[in-house]
C-alpha cells in the first residue's frame, strides 16, 4: 500500500520538475528570444501568458463537466474528486486570465477594464465556477454536496456556449469593428520565434496545470479517506 503511495509521489515530483523546466524555457523564449510586436511593442508578450491561461481554464471546466457527468452516472468518488479539483484550478486560472487581460489592456486601450466580449465572458466564467465552489462548501452532507455540484457543473458547462453567443452578439451588434483586441495579432507576418514561444508556454502551462491538479486531487482523496475512517470509528 505504502509503496504505491511512494511511486505516486515520485511521479508527481517528476511531473513538477518537468513543469518547472518547461516554465523556465518558456519564460526565456517569451521574454528574450521572441521579438516585440510590430504594433504593440513589448507589452504583447503578455499574450504568452494570456492564451495558455484561458485555454487551461477551459480545459479545467471541461474536466469539471466530464467529472460531474461520470459521477452522476457511475457514482464513483474519484470522478467527484476530479470535478472538485478541476473547478478549484479553473477558478485560479480564470482569475489569472482576467488579471492578465486587464494588465494587457491598460497600455493597449488606456483603461484597466472594459466590458468587451472577451473580458466579460471570462468574468462570467469566474462567477459560475466560484458559485460551484460555494455550493460545495455550503452543503454539509458530502454526498449531497457532490451530487448538487455535479448538476451545477453540467448545467454551467452547457450554458457556456449560450452565454458566449449572447455576449458576443451584444458587444458586436452596435460596436464599430475597429476595436483592437490583443489576441488579434497580424498572423500574416508572424515571426516563427513567436509561435515557438507560444507553443512552449502552452506546454509549460499544461504541465503546471496537471501537476497542481494531481496534488489537489490527492488532497481531496486523502480528505475523503479521513472522513471514511472517522465514520468507521464513530460507528
Amino acid at each position, binding site marked *: 500500500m505504502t509503496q504505491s503511495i511512494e511511486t505516486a509521489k515520485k511521479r508527481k515530483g517528476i511531473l513538477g520538475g518537468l513543469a518547472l523546466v518547461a516554465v523556465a524555457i518558456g519564460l526565456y523564449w517569451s521574454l528574450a528570444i521572441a521579438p516585440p510586436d510590430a504594433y504593440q511593442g513589448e507589452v504583447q508578450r503578455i499574450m504568452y501568458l494570456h492564451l495558455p491561461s484561458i485555454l487551461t481554464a477551459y480545459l479545467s471546466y471541461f474536466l469539471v463537466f466530464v467529472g460531474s457527468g461520470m459521477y452522476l452516472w457511475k457514482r464513483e468518488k474519484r470522478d467527484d474528486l476530479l470535478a472538485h479539483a478541476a473547478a478549484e484550478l479553473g477558478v485560479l486560472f480564470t482569475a489569472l486570465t482576467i488579471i492578465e487581460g486587464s494588465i494587457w489592456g491598460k497600455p493597449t486601450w488606456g483603461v484597466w477594464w472594459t466590458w468587451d466580449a472577451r473580458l466579460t465572458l471570462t468574468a*462570467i466564467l469566474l462567477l*459560475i465556477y466560484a458559485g*460551484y465552489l460555494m*455550493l460545495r462548501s455550503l452543503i454539509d452532507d458530502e454526498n449531497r454536496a457532490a451530487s448538487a455540484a455535479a448538476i451545477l457543473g*453540467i*448545467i454551467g458547462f452547457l450554458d457556456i456556449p449560450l*452565454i458566449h453567443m*449572447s455576449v458576443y*452578439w*451584444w458587444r458586436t451588434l452596435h460596436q464599430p469593428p475597429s476595436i483592437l483586441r490583443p489576441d488579434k495579432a497580424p498572423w500574416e507576418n508572424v515571426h516563427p520565434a513567436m509561435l515557438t514561444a507560444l507553443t512552449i508556454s502552452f506546454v509549460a502551462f499544461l504541465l503546471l496545470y496537471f501537476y497542481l491538479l494531481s496534488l489537489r486531487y490527492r488532497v481531496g482523496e486523502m480528505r475523503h479517506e479521513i472522513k471514511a475512517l472517522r465514520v468507521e470509528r464513530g460507528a
Partner: protein
Amino acid sequence: MDLLTQTYLLLRKDLLLELRRRDSLLTMFFFGTLLLFVFHFSFDLPPDKVAEMAPALLWLAFLFTGTLGLAQLFQAERENHCLDALLLSPLDRGALFLAKTIFNLILMLLVELVVIPLFWILFNLSAWNLLPQLFLVILLGTIGFCVLGTIMSALTLRARARELLLPLVLFPLMIPVILATIRCMESVLRNGEFGEALSWLKLLVGFDVIFITVGILIFDWVIES
C-alpha cells in the same frame, strides 16, 4: 400514470394551496410594485429616457421578484417531510420538475400582468400597442428563468445561506436570458417590431428548449441531492 397527468396533479395541488393562502403571490406582487417605486426614486429619469430604460428596469424587477418566489418554491414540501413522501412514491421526477416550473411561471406571469401596465402608467409611457409583443418576450424570458430557477432552487434546498446562494448560482447562468430579453424589448420599443431582434428571440427559444429538456432528464439527480 403518464408524465403529463402526474404534472397536472402536482401542479393542481400547488395551485390550490396557493389559492387558499396566496402567500407567495401577494408577496411577489407587492415586492414587484415596491421595486418600481424604488427605481423611480433611484433613477429620477427624464420622460424621454424612461422608454429606453424600461426594459431593463422591468426585467430587473421581475428577476428579483422571481427569486423571492423561487425561495418559496419547495417550502410546502419541506414541512412535514412531504418531499420524502413524494420521492418514495413511483413519481416521475420530471413531472415534479415540470409542475414546480409551471407553478412558478404562473405566479410570475400573474405578477407581470399587473406590474407591466402599472409601470406603463406610473412612468407615463405611451406605446400601449406594443405591449403584446413585449409580453411575448417577457413570457419567453420568464420561462427560461423558471426552468433554471426551479433546478437551482432544488439544488440549494439543503445548503446553508440558501437565500444568498440561490441568486449567486442562478444569475450568471441567466445572462443569455437577461441579454436576449432586454435587447429584444429595446428593439421592439425602438422600431415597433422585432426586426433585427429576431436572433435574440431565437436564442431565447433555444435556451428554453434546451433547459426544459435538461431539466426533465436530470431532475432525478437534482432532487436526490
